[in-house]
């Protein structure tokens, strides 16, 4: 079992690095199958919610809930096993991260490496507001109209002469 998973993970890494076209061709996603589902609807709902945030490692940005890859199926079963064993949501996530790394999370956790990612919207927005504020405030001071160039002065003189 472990060997099979290892092969799949290696295949995933291979797919991501070498980007072979064959693996990018999507076959229809069959996602969750009826036989995988938990009997208890509350537990199943939790499993579905967790699955939606976990990445299928062999797919491109697809959650294990959407993917039909074998690895995704294994992960879905794993999530349900942990839930049945009484894990909380956080414990399930921690377990998966300990096995597959942060890569498995579609929503990266906030740490030093992802700080810039999470801060982007706020930083850009505040910089934008500050910039707009400064520009608008600076612009409201009356400014002398720009000087006309000699050519333009000459043109005006010519036009006024014509009409005069």
């Amino acid at each position, binding site marked *: 079992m472990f060997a099979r998973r290892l092969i799949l993970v290696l295949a995933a890494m291979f*797919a*991501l690095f070498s*980007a*072979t*076209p064959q*693996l*990018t*061709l*999507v*076959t*229809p*996603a*069959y*996602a*969750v*199958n*009826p*036989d995988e*589902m938990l009997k208890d609807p509350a537990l199943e709902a939790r499993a579905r919610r967790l699955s*939606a*945030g976990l*990445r299928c490692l062999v797919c*491109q*940005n*697809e*959650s294990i809930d*959407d993917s039909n890859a074998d690895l995704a199926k294994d992960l879905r079963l794993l999530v349900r096993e942990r839930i049945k064993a009484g894990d909380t949501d956080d414990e399930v996530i921690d377990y998966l991260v300990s096995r597959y*790394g*942060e*890569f*498995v*999370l*579609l*929503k*990266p956790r906030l740490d030093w*490496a*992802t700080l*810039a*990612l*999470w801060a*982007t*919207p706020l930083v*850009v*927005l505040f910089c*934008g*507001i500050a910039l*707009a504020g400064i520009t*608008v405030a600076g*612009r*409201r001071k009356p400014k002398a109209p*720009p000087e006309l160039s000699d050519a333009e002065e000459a043109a005006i003189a010519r036009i006024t002469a014509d009409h005069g």
Partner: protein
Amino acid sequence: MIVEIGHFALVLSLAVAMVQSVLPIIGARKGDERLMETGAIAATGGFVLIGISFAALMSSYVTSDFSVLNVAENSNSLQPLLYKFTSTWGNHEGSMLLWVLILAFFGSLVALFGRDLPATLKANVLSVQAWILTAFLLFILLTSNPFERLDPAPMEGQDLNPILQDIGLAIHPPMLYLGYVGFSIAFSFAIAALIDGRIDAAWARWVRPWTLIAWIFLTLGIAMGSYWAYYELGWGGWWFWDPVENASFMPWLAGTALLHSALVMEKRSALKIWTILLAILTFSLSLLGTFLVRSGVLTSVHAFATDPTRGVFILCILCLFIGGALFLFALRAPSLAGGGLFAPISREGALVFNNLFLTTAAATVLVGTLYPLVLEVVAGQKISVGAPFFDLTFGPLMVPLLFAVPFGPLLGWKRGDLLGAAQRLYFAAGCALAALVGVLAFTGGTRVLTAFGFALAFWLLAGSLTDLFLRAAFLKVGWRTGLSRLLGLPSSAFGATLAHFGLGVTLLGIVSVSSFQQELITSMAPGKTAEIAGYTLSFDRIDQRPGPNFDAQAATFTVRQGGVEMTKIETSKRFFPVRQMTTTESGIWTHWFSQLYLSLGDPSPDLQTIVVRIWWKPFVTLIWIGTVFMGLGGVFSLADRRLRVGAPTRSRRKAAGRDAALGAGA
């Protein structure tokens, strides 16, 4: 022979593009009219040449000429004729050829419709267009030549990727490219203005229609791609925050911001420098999108082209154009004079607000898309950034923006009255409140977020109509006069209203389907029934159906409501032997605005039952209907005489006539 003519035409077009890169701009520098005029001739000629080249490739696809490597790799003689045509751009080389064809097309449009443009501006614009064209023609000829021959020619081709054998995908890439590449015009105008060192309101008047055209195509192209993914990929999702989707969404966000800021520049000659920057950024994001999709740096549903040399080549083009443009901008922008003044609460202020949030949203999507790549290169750390991240960041950014939409058109230029605008929106506020209370009552107070989503959607719907309603003054002058006043409004007023209304329609669809969708995944045997959302589906039969280049397994279901037969739904799986791939053909029944969505999964090992996925998707079609409204809004804006290309001629003639009359009077 035809293939060689196509190849030759392509090489010749490169030579023409090189000439066009140099002569007109020199002419503009020296004030030599004859040199400047070469731009228009070269642009038109280049378009014809690339057109010949594209037609040659298409003819080898239609005739299944497998002695052409590209054709042998991406088509099959058994394909239906339509998909032989569309195979032309269903692959890397062909789609790049389509890209340059559209680029040359836009260039020739400038040459054709740009008669009233100042000669130097036109010459500069055409030269800048030719720089882009030259770079991409070199890319095609050096790394992605579609005309390479194959000897000996195989008997049969390798078929087009089956998921692309679909009418949606036949139209999606050309639409998307018309959008993507259309922004090159805004870019070229921006660069030309920077080279000239002059920019005025007339510039914005020229840029806005081009941006609008590109924006309309991009809007519809993205919507079409989304609907395609919805029905073709078989799990009923309509947006995945897939990097390639993001690649088309970023230029859309920036382009939408550009449309609005160009409006300020045109009307009030403010925000000049920002508009120029935005024009550069929008096309840069289009180039980035092309890079992401075409280089294979991201491997995903759409990326069917992978080769590092190509990636590096496009990356060089990217750096050259974006870097060069920004450098020129930094050099010249300070010398561009700022324009009209305005108070923070004003139409201009509202449009700045719009730009702030749209740009932040674009930046968020950009960073989210590239962050995993960058982190891996810099720190060797692998992370994923997927839908949950974007939902959490992009979503909250859209809320204040959408809330502010109805205010914009009600605020006056220069100095607006926020309180007055709010008072005029009482009807919209009432609608929103009613939606809020209604949804809370309907769900027993459990879905607070959903209720606010519906409230926002109705606020947008009613709020966008308020402007038209007030301008027609229905309450003051009565329905009859009001109606005639409404019809007399400039079509740009309808444009803004329709586009904003479409936003509300799309939001309504999104909120509704993400809150109230029902799902049933079950194993079924023929003769069994399933229940969902008040409908009873009975599985009638499953049978084999051979297709032209595939074998299908089709299941038929009868839908009943209260014992009455409503419709039959057919859904199938297709197996394509050449590529050894299976696709799902989802079965969809549209009932009013909602859909019942079926797709087939795997059969059980004993082949007695098959997994069936059934979704009830309430109001899901509104998501795409809304985008049609947005596109229509764009068309109405474009139809406004004030913006129509060539319109200045008439007003100038009128002005000339008036001067003459004045002269006669004096």
